[in-house]
């Protein structure tokens, strides 16, 4: 099976030429491809090409136990894996009618928000690098590493924690952990000023990002844009507040929005979200010591656990947008069907194809990165 043909053909007299962005290209996020046809430096046609990271998760999950799948799901979005675990757990808990202990819920929120900050730091780095600015990338990734250290301490894994199980979380926070989280947050809070100077208010960056890949509100709704990308268009929608899960209703946080809907607005929204996440985590740090109780609702022998037949649709707000799991059980030891709705599936395919057409070659990479698409969510 040959991927392409080498049989020479006559090219029609045309002024267009093709460029492949990816899969091996610094202008594309991860293993993903965008084929563009250009006239001069204006894109006249854009086609995404996905599947480079396809592992058939949904098929694999049908073949594994309910509990085994916990190890599988974080791999669907590598930069921000925690929402995947939580969302799957929420769906299964909903199916099995398990009540999650309150303390576990607070810890989940702590982990979710830490993961959001880490993902956003990673995003800034990538976005800065598309404009040729590597210093924020070096700083951002290094600062993210401090958060990964926290993950490691809490869960044992830097990236994939496999920490959230249906019913609760795996273990309690270690001693002194909350203090260390607090210190790290102080550090990152302090660093944000540097990032502002270096990156967010950098005149050249602002000039380059303004007006790139603009989505208006109607388009955003029509194209099912979610998450920060939606909020960058001035629409104040957030699954955490509109379709609340865990203990988010008890927390006090704002939903930052921007009006412009362009790459700059999308970046700034994420910048503001980091502050909100820090706020949330501070509340968790304050409240968590007073919340006692078990960490898990015990489930029957996990290796022979039959979840009652039914279906459940769970949604979680990840750093990319709305993550949703549609889980169907036929009462067996394994899920009958799991459908994963990654937010990037919308952003990286339909939205990107539409935004790319008519844009400049200079701005393609920026458009891709500002949407903060995560290709494995497309491919699954």
């Amino acid at each position, binding site marked *: 099976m040959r991927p392409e043909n080498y049989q020479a053909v006559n090219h029609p007299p045309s002024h267009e*030429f*093709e*460029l492949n962005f990816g899969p091996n*290209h*610094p*202008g594309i996020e991860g293993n993903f491809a965008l084929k563009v046809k250009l006239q001069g*430096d204006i894109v006249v046609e854009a086609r995404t090409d996905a599947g480079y990271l396809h592992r058939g998760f949904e098929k694999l999950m049908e073949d594994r136990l309910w509990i085994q799948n916990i190890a599988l799901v974080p791999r669907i979005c590598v930069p921000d894996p925690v929402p995947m675990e939580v969302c799957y757990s929420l769906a299964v808990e909903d199916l099995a009618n398990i009540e999650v202990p309150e303390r576990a819920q607070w810890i989940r929120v702590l982990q979710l928000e830490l993961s959001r900050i880490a993902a956003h730091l990673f995003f800034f780095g990538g976005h*800065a*690098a*598309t*404009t*040729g*600015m*590597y*210093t924020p990338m*070096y*700083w951002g990734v*290094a600062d993210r590493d401090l958060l990964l250290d926290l993950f490691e301490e809490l869960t044992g894994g830097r990236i994939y924690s496999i920490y959230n199980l249906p019913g609760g979380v795996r273990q309690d926070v270690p001693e002194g952990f909350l203090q260390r989280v607090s210190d790290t947050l102080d550090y990152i809070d302090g660093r944000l000023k540097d990032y502002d100077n*270096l990156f967010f208010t*950098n005149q*050249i*960056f602002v*000039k*380059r990002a303004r007006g790139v890949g603009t989505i208006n509100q109607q388009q955003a709704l029509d194209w099912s844009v979610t998450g920060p990308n939606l909020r960058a268009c001035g629409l104040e929608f957030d699954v955490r507040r509109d379709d609340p899960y865990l203990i988010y209703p008890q927390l006090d946080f704002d939903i930052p929005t921007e009006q412009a809907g362009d790459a700059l607005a999308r970046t700034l929204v994420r910048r503001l979200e980091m502050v909100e996440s820090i706020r949330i985590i501070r509340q968790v740090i304050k409240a968590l010591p007073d919340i006692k109780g078990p960490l898990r609702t015990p489930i029957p022998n996990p290796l022979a656990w039959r979840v009652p037949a039914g279906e459940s649709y769970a949604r979680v707000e990840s750093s990319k947008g709305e993550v949703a799991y549609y889980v169907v059980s036929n009462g067996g030891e394994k899920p009958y069907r799991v459908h994963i709705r990654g937010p990037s599936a919308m952003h990286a395919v339909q939205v990107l194809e539409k935004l790319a057409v008519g844009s*400049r*070659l*200079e701005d*393609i*990479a*920026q458009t891709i990165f500002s949407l903060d698409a995560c290709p494995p969510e497309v491919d699954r």
Partner: protein
Amino acid sequence: MNETFLTITEVIMMPIVAFIIGLFMVLMMRKLAARIQRRIGPGVFQPLYDIVKLYGKQTQISHGLIHDIGIIMAVGGYVAAVTLLPVPGMNGIADKGGIITLTYLLMVPSLGLALGVGQCANPNGSIGISRALTSMLAYDIPFIIVIFGVATHFSSTSLVSIIAAQQVGGFGTWGISEMPLLALAGLFALHASLGKHPFEIYVAPAEIATGPMVEMGGKFLGGLFVMQSFQLYAASVLYVSLFLGGGENWVTFLLKCFAVLIIPFAIAYLFPRYRTEDLVRLMWKWPVMLALLGIAFVMN
């Protein structure tokens, strides 16, 4: 005869010296970047290792003869150009060319590179070259005004006499203290000619996958690395010769050369790159304005 022999010796020596200094300039650039990015950065001989490794590659993929010739021209053009740049004790053929010749000789490597990249039939490369030529058009205009101002001020186009004129009265007669506006405009042009951020439009990895370098591997890329060290050397020595009084001796000369480069390097890692037209707009606005003002002062 003796004079010719001496000149030939200098012509052989100067590229070697330039290459060694250039390697250290590359090292300084990478170290400075690392420091700004809170890293340690490469070891002292890293630039040399890179070049030796690239030349030592076993398979060398070429897209044709012009691809080869392009790299030869790119390296050779710089080897020739540095012999026109007087350094302490060695004038080379500086009195046989002058700045105008040097300016145009410095275009030979770009042309060679452009030809080589063109042969690769990769649009990334071609776009890179089109951007490189555009940025050349952008920064050469202020640069050429600066050259005009300096040549008028010293009423000579020969670098040897320009340097000699500057060294007469120490700092007071340096180009930078007599023509500060031109020196500033020249610094802009120098920065842009190095192709560092925010003027790095033609490498632009995220846009055109390092542009001209995209099909260059092995000794082709090695040639580009050699070229880069020559480029840094040529740019800084030219600036030092025009504005900082050239080199009285090797110590001050090297100090000046490296000091000149610190400014663009320190700026480079704090900014993203411009769009092409923004670069042209910037270069045609501020440096040109400064340089024209400078000329107005020089000519009165």
